[in-house]
């Protein structure tokens, strides 16, 4: 049975964050042909960077592995074009970081390696995980956690959630994918269920995507163990723990994984990628990216090869109307600013937001008037006004006491602040300080717990 009850997570959140999805949600995904040169970084995931397995001058095919690493938390990198490796060097990423990258001149032929197709019914969970690992699938919602590890949960799980909440303003790639490729989402869901041994699958979608809800309901109609959960619009419902709370009413304990409450959450795009990897053997070398915002001439969703410069993507969407007030990797609430527009598209890039001056807001850092809007809004139940201040001042004991590590960095505290304080930025700094302290404690063998 499909579930049509609208629900949401109870605590914190904000139902009035404007979603700004109208510019792209109705437009079909268009494909951008591969550029003449792609830059493929060796680090597109959480974990150890890949070691390049090709050298300058090598001819590579589309889908051929470029980098691998035997480390536990790692996902291999594949070529997105066919052509010749012209450089293996440090290249700037869009976010301003630098990473070792393989630069390939596209020969335009798109010669593919032969993909191994398969039948899900005949696969064992281990085979599924191996196929997912070989395809280099990572969390494509932005987290970049290697998917094959997620498919091997430390505890038995009974429920798989597909995260179609897409609460981040402007972004509609998951929305469009659910509308256009609903069967593949279901295919990915089934693959994940098989790999993890879960008995039911739920696709959670916010009610502002009625066409996606309809498509997913149609796609899951015949299967009793699959359902669609319609969620009220509330930011940040797409956050993993908030989604679990909203759909299953279970609270993932602090510092624990969703598997601890018997579920695994996967993004819509990741599910599709898993489906393609398992059934078609297709590695992750392209993805759908939302290009939106008031500064974009023709905002839309674009299917683009990994390694394409962001500038090329922007040009494909008609370019920008003047200098944008903010150019962001992903959505404006959680995304980092784009510091280099020639940086490549990576597996985790779900969108590019180019906000004009009317849309964008920035830190002003006026004095806190203790209005407590951030406290009421925080979905993690923190007190951001105090925590932000303590983090900013480096008062680590208070940062520990107020549990900075539980911040999910949704940015809602900064969003609601009438004084436009950089609360989430400070708390991120506090988290980093805390993590450094913990690492040092581990190194010195001191107890991590106070």
């Amino acid at each position, binding site marked *: 049975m499909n579930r049509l009850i609208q629900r949401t997570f109870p605590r*914190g959140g904000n139902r009035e964050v404007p979603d700004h999805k109208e510019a792209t949600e109705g437009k079909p995904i268009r494909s951008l042909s591969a550029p003449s040169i792609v830059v493929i970084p060796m680090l597109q995931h959480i974990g150890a960077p890949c070691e390049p397995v090709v050298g300058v001058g090598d001819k590579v095919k589309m889908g051929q592995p470029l980098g691998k690493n035997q480390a536990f938390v790692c996902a291999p990198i594949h070529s997105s074009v066919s052509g010749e490796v012209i450089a293996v060097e440090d290249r700037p990423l869009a976010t301003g970081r630098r990473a070792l990258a393989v630069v390939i001149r596209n020969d335009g032929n798109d010669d593919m390696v032969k993909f191994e197709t398969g039948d899900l019914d005949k696969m064992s969970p281990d085979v599924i995980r191996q196929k997912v690992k070989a395809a280099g699938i990572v969390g494509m919602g932005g987290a970049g956690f290697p998917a094959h590890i997620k498919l091997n949960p430390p505890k038995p799980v009974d429920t798989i959630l597909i995260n179609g909440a897409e609460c981040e303003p402007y972004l509609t790639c998951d929305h469009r994918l659910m509308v256009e490729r609903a069967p593949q989402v279901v295919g990915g869901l089934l693959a994940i269920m098989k790999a993890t041994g879960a008995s039911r699958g739920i696709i959670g979608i916010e009610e502002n995507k009625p066409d996606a809800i309809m498509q997913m309901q149609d796609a899951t109609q015949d299967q009793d163990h699959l359902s669609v959960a319609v969620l009220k619009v509330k930011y940040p419902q797409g956050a993993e723990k908030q989604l679990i709370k909203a759909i299953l009413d279970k609270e993932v304990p602090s510092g624990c994984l969703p598997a601890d409450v018997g579920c695994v959450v996967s993004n819509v795009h990741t599910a599709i990628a898993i489906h393609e990897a398992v059934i078609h053997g297709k590695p992750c070398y392209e993805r759908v990216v939302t290009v939106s915002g008031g500064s974009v001439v023709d905002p839309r969703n674009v299917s683009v090869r990994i390694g394409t410069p962001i500038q090329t993507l922007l040009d494909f969407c008609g370019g920008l109307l003047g200098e944008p007030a903010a150019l*962001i990797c992903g959505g404006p*609430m959680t995304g980092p600013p784009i510091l280099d527009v020639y940086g490549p598209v990576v597996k985790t890039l779900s969108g590019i*937001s180019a906000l004009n001056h009317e849309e964008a807001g920035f830190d002003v850092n006026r*004095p*806190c008037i203790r*209005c407590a809007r951030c406290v009421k809004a925080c979905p*993690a139940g923190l007190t951001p006004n105090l925590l932000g201040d303590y983090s900013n001042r480096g008062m680590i004991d208070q940062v520990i006491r*107020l549990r900075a590590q*539980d911040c999910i960095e949704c940015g809602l505290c900064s969003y609601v602040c009438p004084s436009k304080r950089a609360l989430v930025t400070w708390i991120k700094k506090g988290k980093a300080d805390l993590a450094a302290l913990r690492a040092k404690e581990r190194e010195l063998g001191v107890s991590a717990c106070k």
Partner: protein
Amino acid sequence: MQVRTGPFLRDAVTIEQVMGDVLIALIPTVVAGVLLYGRHTLMVVVLSTLSAVLTEAILTRAPLTPKGIFGDGSAAVTGLLLGLILPHTTPYWVPIFGSFFAIALVKLAFGGLGYNIFNPALAARAMLLLAFTSEMIYLTDAVTGATPLWGTARFSWSLFWGNVHGIIGETSVIAILLGAAYLFYKRHINWRIPVSCLGSAFILALVWGLDPWHTITAGGLMFAAFFMATDMVTSPVTPVGEIVFGAGCGMLTFMIRQYTPFPEGVTFAILIMNAMTPAIDSLTIPPVFGVGASYKTRIRGFAVTAGVVIVLLGALVGIERNEPAIRPLISNGHYLPMHELLRDPDYDVVEVDETRYYVVRDEEGDPLQAAFIAERNGFNGPISFLLLLDAEHQIERVSVLKQGENPGFGELITRSSFLSQFVGMDKDSPFSVGEDIQLISGATVSSRAVISGVERALQHFDQAFFGVDGPGILNDGTFVGETASFGGPLEVEVVVEGGRISSVTVLRHSDTPGFSDPAISGVPERIVAANSAQVDAVSGATLTSEAIMSAVQAALESTSVGQGDELELDPEVRDTSDGTSVANAPFEITVGDGTHRGRAQGFGGELVLDVTVTGARITDIVVVESSETPFIADAAFKKLLPAIIEAQGPVETVSGASVTSGAIHGALRDALNMKEGQ
């Protein structure tokens, strides 16, 4: 491009909008205040707002643009809030000075917006209340004002719409609720603080047996619950903290109203809770997502709440339990309505001798409970007070309504510890100072004035409703009465016609000629006019006046017992006149005619008097040298010297100047060569 950090979307709300919305929410209360109290009110709030904005602009050296001077609007909010919690009669300098204090010392000195510990408007009000009490407390004659207008049953509705005099912004509940609704709609306040604040006061009122609706609608509680306690900067940020804070405000307000002389408890209640805000915040950090409300956290939250409740209730119990016997009649500048005082909505209003008596009558028309306002001159002018008599005509309650006594000293007469001494007394009580009634040290003049005022008021009440000697009507005829005055026996003839005194003639007296003449001619006229033996004495001839009154009383007493024109004196009457008027026997003048100089040690130094004796009588006393406290001693000189000449002997000391009075007597004895104590 400049590197900025996310999020790059921001809610449109700004500090200016929050402050602007608070200003908008205050418009109904301003309008209600102006409608109720007139344009002076508008000036008060405008001045307080302007003063606050200018103080902030000058001290922060704001740029000379309208926006720069207006700033973030928080100064305007502080100024307007302060204006709204001032009495509508306040002089113009009060809002100006108050706003300056609020902004300069309570807000900016602590670091400006967001850093102040105390609510600036309330801190300024507290300062003004303590430093300029008389400008801050406005007490109106509610008995003649609100109650008749609104009848009996609808009193609380009059509070609701705003027809009770008091503080500008605290008057109209409907205006306050309108503004609060706007703030709720804009989500600048939430339910926790107002509900817990009003709710705790409501519950305490129920427990204490008061009318809970009156408790929360009267005075400043409603206004403060929505606009003061919810001040973002000075209230907790955590949800549980907000409830603890609100409950503390409500409970402390109730306590302060019940047990202290301050008419407005909510100011101090919120300031106290402001000081506790950081601690409350720190102890009520909400449980984090995924951590849940751990056992420890829950226990701690429970302990904090329980601790606050226990401390507050403990303080309630710890405060002298004998005090609540008499509760302040005036709660927060407003009076209890007459029907509540008399516990009967069916009462008459009777005017006798310019005093308005509110009387409940029994079936036969005889008065039972009664309430009325009396006045007596105190140290700085008239003290008016409300007397409430029970069905036995014993004092149930005395409340000082209006007084201009010195702050800190004279104003202590408004304390219930003093006023409760009167409870249970009636017209026959002796009112002897030091035995039945203790004076307030430091406020002897004021407290004596209240004591004598209460005594006289009881007598007036008695005369108004029971005539001179009970409800009977005077028998017609001519009667003679005699009493002992200080010069010797005094005899009067009283003619009663048609049940009224038609004439009074002094037949015989031996009082000092000249001094007693005004009394001999004046008092009989007054007695006839008042149809009563109890009238005001003629100044300068108090003793003779009182002797005439006693004699008339004696004559009239003889009528009711039907003894006709017998000349025999009623011994009781003589006792009464002796006891109250002449304290001591006249001086024995042994020195010859002439002017004699006498000295004695006074309060401030030596006191030197010249006493003129003519024909063995004191005819004049002149103060040659005095180092006594001005004003206080002046009263002694002014009152005491003529009285001594009239009495030819020592008289009662002047209250408040007992040392000086003693010195005068000492110097007199010295001049007349008498020994101390004679």
